[in-house]
């Protein structure tokens, strides 16, 4: 495919899009589907047909529009009006009001605090495109970055852009993406692999799922650009099998991209070839750990192994492997298109760009948000999230899932970046953000996460296998208010030992929720210590 051809296709799709006077985009990502958004789509289509407006008004099932808690969400264009909690019976009103004043009772004003402070980079096409139609994505710039990279840039130039952008791994640890890519690029291996980690598993996290459901092409494009940059020809996307809709849309996207020649052999008539396959996880959290994930793709039991060697040196089937998270790959195309300088200008100096968070728990506005790094927790929770419902008081925000920690009131003005969150004893993590109010017992929260880690430990190394179970039993004593001071001492020793000696990240970080709640809410633990009593 030459530039003219590509431009022609894109232009044709844009023209098709513009031919409609009105667009009604209804979210059909999982949250809104659960609220019945598919019925809304049907009702709107029926209404349009009845009025004979098929050629004027286009109804599109799109990806996530953000405010998942108030679904189904929809947006009209070019009016730029959001509607929330839409019912099929609202169809007539919505169409009546196209191009006029919005329907008041379901209107979600553009100036709602939910939108203030958000910036969509990763999700720029989510809610605009039909995730099941590549044509729709092309109209909004999909694969242009790949085209640019593969036909106009050298791999070194691509690497330079990614490195200069300051992008860091969005899976949680924040390893510099450019450094990872350069390492794989430098490896002298005839076969290299690209792996996309879509095994999102933190409780309360649904960022990657939303990206897969909303804009699967963005992921494929990022992977292909990575493959071009590091010299890989094969790619795998590892997705947890529970993400049915995401998998279905990724499958479609891969097929469509292959058909268009954006994946496969001789992409854009260049010598560059790249094929992508899907692999489904069978429900083990630990498979999100990169070495376990690789073992799982290989068809083995999903157990982690000691690093080094890192996957960059010896990964899938012993070959050099680049493994990044879904959101990391989803950042690549905008970086190539807009330049590293643009990206580095977003966020903070050390944590560039935006981060997608899944805001959930005791907060007024639950949903998927994308914010520039450096925004404070308070801005997210009180501004975008609208504070705590039912007049309760904020108690803590949990970030980083079972590997993270709970951050209390006094640190709400901390900027969200990798280092600041780590200093507070939590981590950025993949983007789960669970808000808790004053009714939450922090000891119970700690036990909840420990139970999660205990259930999800693979059992390979002793500290994680036994330590999580031991800590869970101790925490249960606290929850039951039967703990002793010796239990507290032992719990703290176990936290230290398990974090220091476990084989992989799961075990090393499993004590984090306990350590952070001990740090900020020690009183609650002390209150659970039973008074020494004389046994009868």
């Amino acid at each position, binding site marked *: 495919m030459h530039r003219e051809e590509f431009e022609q296709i894109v232009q044709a799709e844009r023209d098709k899009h513009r031919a409609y006077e009105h667009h009604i985009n209804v979210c059909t990502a999982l949250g809104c589907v659960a609220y019945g958004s598919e019925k809304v789509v049907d009702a709107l289509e029926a209404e349009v047909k009845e009025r004979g407006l098929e050629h004027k008004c286009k109804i599109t099932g799109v990806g996530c529009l953000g405010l998942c808690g108030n679904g189904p969400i929809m947006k009209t264009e070019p009016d730029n009006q959001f509607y929330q909690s839409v019912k099929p019976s609202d169809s007539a009103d919505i169409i009546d009001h196209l191009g006029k004043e919005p329907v008041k009772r379901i209107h979600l004003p553009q100036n709602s605090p939910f939108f203030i402070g958000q910036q969509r980079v990763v999700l720029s096409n989510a809610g605009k495109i039909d995730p099941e139609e590549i044509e729709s994505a092309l109209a909004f710039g999909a694969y242009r970055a790949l085209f640019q990279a593969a036909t106009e840039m050298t791999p070194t130039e691509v690497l330079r852009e990614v490195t200069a952008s300051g992008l860091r791994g969005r899976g949680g640890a924040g390893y510099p993406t450019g450094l990872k890519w350069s390492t794989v690029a430098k490896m002298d291996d005839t076969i290299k692999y690209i792996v996309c980690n879509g095994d999102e598993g933190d409780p309360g996290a649904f960022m990657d799922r939303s990206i897969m459901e909303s804009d699967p092409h963005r992921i494929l494009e990022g992977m292909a650009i990575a493959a071009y940059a590091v010299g890989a020809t094969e790619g795998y996307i590892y997705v947890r099998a529970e993400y049915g809709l995401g998998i279905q849309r990724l499958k479609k996207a891969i097929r469509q991209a292959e058909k268009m020649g954006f994946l496969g052999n001789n992409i854009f008539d260049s010598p560059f070839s790249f094929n992508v396959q899907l692999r489904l996880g069978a429900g*083990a959290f*630990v498979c999100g750990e990169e070495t376990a994930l690789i073992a799982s793709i290989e068809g083995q*039991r999903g*157990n982690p*192994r*000691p690093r*080094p060697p890192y996957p960059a040196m010896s990964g899938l089937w012993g070959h050099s492997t680049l493994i990044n998270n879904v959101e990391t790959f989803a950042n690549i195309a905008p970086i190539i298109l807009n330049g590293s300088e643009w990206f580095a200008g977003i966020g903070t100096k050390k944590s560039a760009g935006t981060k997608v968070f899944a805001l959930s728990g005791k907060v007024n506005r639950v949903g998927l948000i994308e914010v520039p790094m450096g925004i404070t927790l308070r801005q997210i929770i009180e501004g975008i999230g609208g504070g705590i419902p039912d007049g309760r008081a904020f108690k803590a925000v949990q970030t980083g899932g079972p590997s993270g920690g709970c951050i209390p009131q006094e640190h709400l003005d901390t900027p969200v970046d990798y280092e600041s969150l780590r200093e507070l004893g939590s981590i950025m993590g993949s983007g789960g953000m669970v808000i808790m109010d004053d009714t939450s017992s922090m000891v119970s929260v700690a036990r909840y996460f420990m139970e999660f880690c*205990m*259930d*999800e*430990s*693979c*059992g*390979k*190394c*002793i*500290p994680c*296998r*036994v*330590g*999580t*179970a*031991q800590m869970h*039993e*101790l925490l249960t004593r606290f929850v039951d208010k039967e703990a002793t001071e*010796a239990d507290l001492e*032992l719990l703290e*020793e*176990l936290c230290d*030992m398990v974090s*220091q*000696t*476990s*084989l992989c990240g799961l075990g090393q970080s499993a004590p984090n929720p306990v350590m952070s709640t001990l740090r900020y809410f020690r009183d609650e633990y002390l209150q659970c210590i039973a008074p020494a009593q004389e046994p009868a």
Partner: protein
Amino acid sequence: MMPVKTFKIDGQDVSGREDETILEIARENDIFLPTLCNIAGLKPVGACRLCMVEVAGSNKLLPACATRVQEGMEVTTNSERLQKYRRMILEMLFVEGNHICSVCVANGHCELQWLAEKLGVDHTRLNYMFPAKEVDVSHYRYAIDHNRCILCTRCVRVCAEIEGAHTWDVSGRGIEAKVVTDLNTPWALSETCTECGKCVQVCPTGALFKKSRAVGEMVKDGQFLPYLKTMREVDNA
């Protein structure tokens, strides 16, 4: 030619080929490091975490069995912190199973028991879990008592890497994980087991044993492994 690295273990100057591990060089120099999952001749898995060492300049502890030597590295094998962690690991093993040494076939010949003695574990502060575990005595020659299994996976590896049968593997996860024969069939019904008995010989505890052995009678011999491995390499050459 394989480059040789010189470095320090506990202040002692040592050298090793670049494909050798810290553990191998420590053993070569009579520096004691406790291990349970590791056994010479099988691929290291870094699972038991007993051989963790400190390396100057790194804040992470590293498993000596799975860490290659590096020029100039300074390894500490026996700090107070490491001793504490090691004792805790042994305590964990004692509480997660039902290790009743006094009635065990391997009493007196058990690596777990011996390490507990050596590292001074005379009781545990952890909570005994008293799990309900199975015993498979279906096989006519051998038996497995899961109460005594520490999941070192030596049996899994010797069966796959040396015997080439891959009868053993791990099923379940976390505290529920256990070694199984074939797809969790009784041992006697395993279609892949060659009855070679290597798994029994490498098992560090009394989990795998020959039938008809009474208390303290099951003496293991894992020393044949390096020989078998070398012979295989010669065959393949």
